[in-house]
Every structure is written in C-alpha cells, then in structure tokens.
C-alpha cells in the first residue's frame, strides 16, 4: 500500500541553524501539507501546497518557514533560523484529487525536531 515517507526521523540542531525536513508524498497525490505537534499538544496546520504554490498557510507559518517541491517526488519544509520553540514533531500529509475518499489526508511518520 502506498504511503507517505519522511526523512530524517529525528533531527537535532542548534538554535539559529537552518533545517530542511523532507517528505515523499504518495505518488499520484496533488495536495501536500505540513503540520506540527509540540510535545503534549494537539496537531496544528502549517501550510498546504497545490500546483506548485502555497494554497493556504496558518499564522504559525511566518517568514522563517518555506516549502518547496524541488522535483516530481519530494516536498520539503525549510526553517531558516531555528528557535527553541520550533522543537516539535513535524508531519507531512498528502491527498489525491479524485475518488471516493479524495478528501482523506494520509500522514507520514513524522520528523522529531529538537532545537538546542
């Protein structure tokens, strides 16, 4: 069964460093998302991406964040200058365009980011 994959599973970085989190969505999906979950809290929407552009973003997704689909398979989230409060689990998700359950989002296993 196709699945969303994410790398790395864990990332430890120093405050102020840039990090890139990578995702490979399900191959025929066209909508891509990033969500984050601070430890002990609920999952929050960051950004959605469709047709090579951001379709929606939350207040959390400020100028320190950017997303890119550099090729036909990868979808990345970049944090330019990490802060302590960026420490969280980051989930990538994707969904298809058509079909009986086309609104269903499929989540990757997450990347746990720790900023020291």
């Amino acid at each position, binding site marked *: 069964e196709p699945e969303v994959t994410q790398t790395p599973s864990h990332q430890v970085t120093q405050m102020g460093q840039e990090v890139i989190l990578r995702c490979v969505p399900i191959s025929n999906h066209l909508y891509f998302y990033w969500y984050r979950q601070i430890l002990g809290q609920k999952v929050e929407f960051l950004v*959605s991406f469709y047709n090579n552009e951001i379709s*929606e973003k939350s207040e959390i997704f400020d100028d320190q964040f950017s997303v890119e689909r550099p090729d036909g398979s990868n979808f990345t989230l970049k944090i330019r200058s990490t802060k302590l409060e960026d420490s969280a689990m980051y989930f990538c998700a994707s969904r298809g365009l058509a079909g009986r359950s086309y*609104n*269903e*989002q499929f989540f990757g*296993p997450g990347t746990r980011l720790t900023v020291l």
Partner: protein
Amino acid sequence: GIQVEQSPPDLILQEGANSTLRCNFSDSVNNLQWFHQNPWGQLINLFYIPSGTKQNGRLSATTVATERYSLLYISSSQTTDSGVYFCAVDADSTLTFGKGTMLLVSP
C-alpha cells in the same frame, strides 16, 4: 475557524473493556478522520468517515454530520490500544485537530 472538542480527555480501562470516544465539531465538514498516535508519535489513520458508519476489526466509528458529532468505539480493548486518539475535521481542505483522548489500557 471550526472548533473540535473531544471527550473524555483521559480514559483508563481494564483490558477487555469497551469504550466510546466522542468528537463534537462546530460547523459542517467535508472530511472527518480518526487517528491513533502510537508511543513513537506516529499518526495512524483509523477511519475516514465524514458521515455514516464504518468498522475495522474491534474498532468502529459513526459520524452524524447533521448533528455535528462522531463516535469511535473500541471493543475488547487491548494494551496495544493505549495512546492518544485524535479526531480531525476539515471544512476547507485543512485539517483541524481536537486535543485528543489519552487512553490507557491496563492488563
């Protein structure tokens, strides 16, 4: 934005017991999903259920869209069912999650 409330916030069960988790939402939705977050933090898709009833083994879910709630039933619970159960809804293609129900199943 849409509000999602889950109850109860915490639940402790003996192995073999049944339970019902509830999700209330404040507006019409296109999508409702239930997830189980395992001890490693992974979100496991349980159900995509914007309306109606579905069953998968010991788990089943019902969404009454007109009354804006969904229920997740766990029967004959096992210790591996422990974790956090999240309900998430979308009205505009982005998912809004509830705060979850933390379930602990003791042997």
